[in-house]
């Protein structure tokens, strides 16, 4: 489908734009057949911009304004089952309202792509950046990608289409970006040409779809004790398989743009002894801190987790196996669980390694609370002390640290 000439991008551009703007631009270039959405802060800016593209005739997408996010994803499930390339976008409580339908989309193996402006959940009411929303539905069977900045929000969305629709995957993909921090922060973004994006995502040719009247089928049949388990096992295997596809698509995208993507992104990890593991925009802040610390001779490093599902356990084992002390930063709490979701799973990934590092977890930034370079530097300080104490009695210090969750940036007294 053609876009009107006025909006057409025929040369790559470097433009200042917000994450929301970059996301809407990616959606315009992807040009989905159907978008159903309900506005919710801080996602509103994404869908508002895309709705304007529809209203101005820039895209021929069928836009369905609905009365809730439960309906938004339901409409997208229907459109996708019918054979459309379908998208929606949401945030915080809207994502929570989709919870039930997230499982339906994944269970029916519909290649839906959804940007999520990560936001805190009530109560008390809070509209700011936080990972409690998507982490709360981490087990719905969706693939989770998380962007560090507006450029990645744009790049990830384009790649998400290819990942979701891959015949060996066919699993919905969400692309998280920190609410306000990325959605509303201005950055320089390199925008590809419309033709490049169209060529990269390709024409959508579903193998089977409801509107194919020559091959009738039933979607959403009852599956009880005798078949439900097998269907869910298929889903688990598809998400597992997607790890290789995500890496392949990231490599191909790299050849096109020079920006290569994998499941994880190591930063100055060659000889790193003190390592932070983080998701999202905080990884960008940590990189600056690391550069500073390296100048002072501290062997600091970072592993950014870009893909949370499928969980990159093997990458983390390879990258963290030689570290002395590791801090995992979670922008979501599990409230008296074994730390935030990233901490708990990173520990599980390293279980059984003969030389596993000492690991500790931090919950930070809930409800959009700032995380400053000073706070991250303080974490590296803590790690240095932890590593020193572990020299004397590694087993005891490691056991204690593995159960400790600290709160970074909360007023203690």
């Amino acid at each position, binding site marked *: 489908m053609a876009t009107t000439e006025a909006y057409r991008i025929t040369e790559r551009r470097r433009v200042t734009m917000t994450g929301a703007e970059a996301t809407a631009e990616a959606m315009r270039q992807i040009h989905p057949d159907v978008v159903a959405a309900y506005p919710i802060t801080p996602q509103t800016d994404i869908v508002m911009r895309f709705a304007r593209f529809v209203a101005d005739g820039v895209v021929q997408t069928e836009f369905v304004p609905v009365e809730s996010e439960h309906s938004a994803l339901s409409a997208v499930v229907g459109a996708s089952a019918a054979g459309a390339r379908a998208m929606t976008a949401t945030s915080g409580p809207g994502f929570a309202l989709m919870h039930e339908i997230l499982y339906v989309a994944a*269970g029916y193996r519909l290649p839906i792509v959804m940007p999520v402006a990560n936001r805190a959940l009530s109560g008390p009411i809070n509209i700011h950046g936080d990972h409690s929303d998507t982490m709360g539905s981490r087990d719905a069977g969706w693939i989770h990608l998380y962007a560090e900045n507006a450029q990645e929000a744009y790049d990830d969305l384009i790649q998400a289409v290819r990942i979701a629709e891959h015949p060996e995957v066919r699993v919905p993909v969400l692309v998280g970006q920190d609410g306000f921090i990325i959605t509303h922060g201005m950055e320089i973004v390199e925008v590809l040409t419309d033709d490049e994006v169209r060529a990269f995502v390709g024409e959508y040719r579903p193998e089977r779809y409801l509107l194919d009247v020559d*091959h*009738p089928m039933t979607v*959403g*049949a009852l*599956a009880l004790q005798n078949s*439900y388990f097998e*269907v869910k096992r298929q889903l688990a*295997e598809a998400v597992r398989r997607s790890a290789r596809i995500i890496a392949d698509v990231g490599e191909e995208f790299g050849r096109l743009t020079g920006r290569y993507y994998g499941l994880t992104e190591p930063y100055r990890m060659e000889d790193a002894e003190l390592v932070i593991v983080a998701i999202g925009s905080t990884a960008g802040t940590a990189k600056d801190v690391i550069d500073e610390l390296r100048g002072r001779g501290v062997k600091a490093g970072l592993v950014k987790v870009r893909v949370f599902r499928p969980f990159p356990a093997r990458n983390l084992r390879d990258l963290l196996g030689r570290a002395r002390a590791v801090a995992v930063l979670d922008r979501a709490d599990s409230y008296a669980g074994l730390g935030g979701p990233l901490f708990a799973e990173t520990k599980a990934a390293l279980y059984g390694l003969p030389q596993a590092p000492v690991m500790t977890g931090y919950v930070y930034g809930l409800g959009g609370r700032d995380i400053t370079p000073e706070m991250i530097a303080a974490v590296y300080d803590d790690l240095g002390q932890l590593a020193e104490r572990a020299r004397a009695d590694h087993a005891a210090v490691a056991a204690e640290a593995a159960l400790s969750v600290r709160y970074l940036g909360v007023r203690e007294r």
Partner: protein
Amino acid sequence: MNPSRGAAFIEREASVTLPWTEMAEAGLIPQGGTAARVKTGAWRTGSMPVLELSRCIHCLRCWIWCPDSAVLLDGEKVTGIDYDHCKGCGICAQVCPPKVHAIEMVPEGGEA
């Protein structure tokens, strides 16, 4: 999905025997017409539509609206109700033109 795999799924009633690797993906049933084999009329709501054929003008509104394809046709003529699949929703009686009034919902099973 391999269509033959889907056919096997139906033919063998295989949901209880096929391993996950061979089952139709996502629990899809990749062929039509299977609903005919499941008789849903057994749990009708308590009232059933009764068709007075002599009044019927064969406008086919009942056939169009019936959510269970339970109005039987011969060509373009209504011939009766398929009680094996009619759930007693009453939509056919509602959409039958009032002046025609060929379908009446009547209590069933002596419980009324």
